[in-house]
């Protein structure tokens, strides 16, 4: 009975894969699978999907911090048991969704969510839905900032945009705590990115033991790392590397390959803001996010500079953009020079691409708008 360390292979089960999804479908979903005709958003966070059978599926969407406890999951289960035949789901943006099959079941369900206190209803339509984010200081070894803390601070401030649908279009906010960008930062309307700004510190006390030096050297996309002798704290000469700091772009790939080359630093690390990315193919093709603020300091617990920067961009956009226009579509229509002017963001040369495909971003035209930037 149970796992036997003495005999690990005993009736071992492997490669069964995920459980079959269908067993988890609420009855109304199972019955109307593939038969849906249209949907409507009845209120922020409340959707109805109408089937050709005439059946309806009402969905109530609630925010979650994503970093959640089993106790909170059990609370969700209690609600699902009470109102939703014991079924629930999570969205691709980490919201939780409760589904019922008739209108009168909606209000009690919504009330229960609101009553809970940790399950605000919203995130549909022209709103700011749940930010896709990452581990940060809660679990990862390479972060340049925290994840859950920054998201909490930002969403406390943007909360009304989660529970309403007043924006020109959906605004996808994402955070990644380092350039690895686990998640959606590279294609989000507003992205918060943890960035390092100091080259790797070379730990000569450990590097020759814990690192495959050739791998560390090969890891650098810019060839900034070269083999060299180093002196450890005992004063002994050891096989090590040097980093050409002028060629370093702080990507952190060397640290990923070699624990003795940490980049993280309390003052060097912080946050960059990127905007204008999108994923959907609706109207315009998918777009990458563009860097508009290269650095803001790490200021726990509430990162006021980052919160203010995100809110400012969101609200200038909300005022200025046309209906259906995503942040990136708006910026391209008015021109990026106007984006910086309207958002009152000083333009930094750091925002000018100087990497591999840079030339394609240079302005090879006389078409430009005169803005406050031009003295």
């Amino acid at each position, binding site marked *: 009975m149970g796992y036997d360390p003495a005999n690990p292979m005993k009736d071992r089960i492997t490669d069964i894969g995920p459980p079959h999804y269908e067993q988890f479908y609420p009855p109304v979903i199972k019955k109307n699978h*593939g038969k849906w005709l249209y949907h409507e958003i009845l209120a922020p966070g409340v959707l109805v999907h109408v089937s050709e059978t005439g059946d309806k599926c009402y969905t109530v969407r609630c925010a979650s911090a994503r970093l959640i*406890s089993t106790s909170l999951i059990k609370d969700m*289960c209690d609600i699902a048991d009470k109102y939703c035949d014991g079924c629930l*789901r999570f969205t*691709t943006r980490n919201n939780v969704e409760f589904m019922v099959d008739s209108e009168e079941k909606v209000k009690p369900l919504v009330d229960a969510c609101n009553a809970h206190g940790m399950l605000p209803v919203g995130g549909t339509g022209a709103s700011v839905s749940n930010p896709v984010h990452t581990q940060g200081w809660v679990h990862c070894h390479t972060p340049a900032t925290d994840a859950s803390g920054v998201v909490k601070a930002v969403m406390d401030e943007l909360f009304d945009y989660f529970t309403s649908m007043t924006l020109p279009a959906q605004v996808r906010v994402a955070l990644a705590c380092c350039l690895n960008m686990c998640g959606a930062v590279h294609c989000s309307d507003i992205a918060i990115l943890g960035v390092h700004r100091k080259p790797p510190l070379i730990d000569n006390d450990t590097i020759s033991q814990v690192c495959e030096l050739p791998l560390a050297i090969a890891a650098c996309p810019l060839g900034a790392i070269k083999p060299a002798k180093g002196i450890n704290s005992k004063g002994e000469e050891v096989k090590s590397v040097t980093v050409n700091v002028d060629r370093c772009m702080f990507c952190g790939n060397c640290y990923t390959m070699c624990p003795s080359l940490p980049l993280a630093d309390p003052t060097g690390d912080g946050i960059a803001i990127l905007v204008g990315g999108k994923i959907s193919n609706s109207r315009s093709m998918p777009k990458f996010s563009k860097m508009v603020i290269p650095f803001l300091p790490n200021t726990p*617990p509430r990162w006021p500079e980052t919160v203010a920067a995100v809110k400012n961009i969101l609200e200038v956009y909300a005022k200025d953009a046309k209906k259906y226009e995503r942040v990136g579509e708006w910026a391209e229509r008015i021109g990026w020079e106007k984006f910086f002017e309207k958002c009152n963001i000083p333009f930094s040369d750091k925002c000018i691409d100087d990497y591999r495909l840079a030339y394609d971003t240079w302005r090879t035209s006389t078409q430009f708008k005169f803005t406050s930037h031009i003295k």
Partner: protein
Amino acid sequence: MPKHDTPLLDQLESGPWPSFVSDLKRQAEVNPACWDILGQLELSFVDKITHWKHGGIVGVFGYGGGIVGRYSDVPKKFPGVAHFHTVRLNQPSSKFYSTKILRQICDMWERRGSGMTNMHGSTGDLVLLGTFTEQLEEIFYEVTHDIGMDLGGSGGNLRTPSCCLGKARCEWACYDTAAACHNITNTYQDELHRPAFPYKFKTKFSGCPNDCVASIARSDLSVIGTWRDDIRIDQAAVKGYISGEFAPNAGAHAGRDWGKFDIQKEVIDLCPTGCMWMEGGELKIDNAECTRCMHCLNVMPRALRPGVDTGASILIGAKAPILDGAQMSTLIVPFIKMELENEFAEYKEIIEKCWDWWMEEGKNRERIGESMQRVGLPTFLKVMELDALPQHVKEPRSNPYVFWKEEEVEGGFERSLAEFRARNPM
């Protein structure tokens, strides 16, 4: 374990957004290790730096992934998180759950882990956050035997596939994303659990070009639903939108007064191809010019629906910036059928061709998108045994630098200097 002072974190208990700090404190009553999570995180807030050590290779017997090892660099202060390994459970398609299975997972995790989770990880796994090495086999045993779940991917292998809602609850699904995700995940259990690739490989299934699982940005092989016949139009419903009977965009903009719906401004003028117009009170679409961007369907879901000859476009190569800058997936196969009947055979032929080539040609830690860039798109298409199509590019090349192959050039590359000089003396 003792409670630590967390004056900084405590400030994150206020405010309307759900507080992970309050949640952690509550869970600490069940799993005291949470006090140490809070304690170490508080220390990171003070130091402005992570306190997790680099890497750590741990796992369960016979699997090369599914567990991410993690150790504290201040274990004496916070013994409860001295080990803090992540367990990635492969989520069910579209992340539907019964309360029964969730409760089983929770009970197990309270006994054997920190009690903290990510619902879900960015790739799509159900992430169990924080346990000790000695628990890993126990967890694996219980998960597979009692809960009926399995581990997800990590390392140089097929990562846990994921999908959008699809036909379960969306009128626009052009194929059954959940079925595809489930069938394919199970077909490739070995590729998922036993790293044999140069680097990670991700595949995500979206039912239509709205791409609700972000596959074009976040998967090496993106499967995005589309159709090749005509958009279905219900002219009566069109009138319903024009008259104001139906809310545009299904009410997605209800929070602000945008004025009366104007089909010309809100639909026809925003069509990227300009292939729509009104004629005698009816909405017309020149479907041959439509690029199926979804905008008009999004705005008038009751009036417009995808065609009936549906399938998916295959795009390849998305990834985050490390190392050459982020890539989005590139259109490689404009249209395939995605059917459970044939076990998604067309898809599997494509993914296996990719893997065969990439395992041969891909460099260590080179994503397939990077390999594609290195060899060039024309070469990759040859590998995939596909004809080059204008659809593969946004525009033809503007530089004149064509790499002609010897067999393509009359007379080949070998030339006689004597002949040349006889005609063109030096």
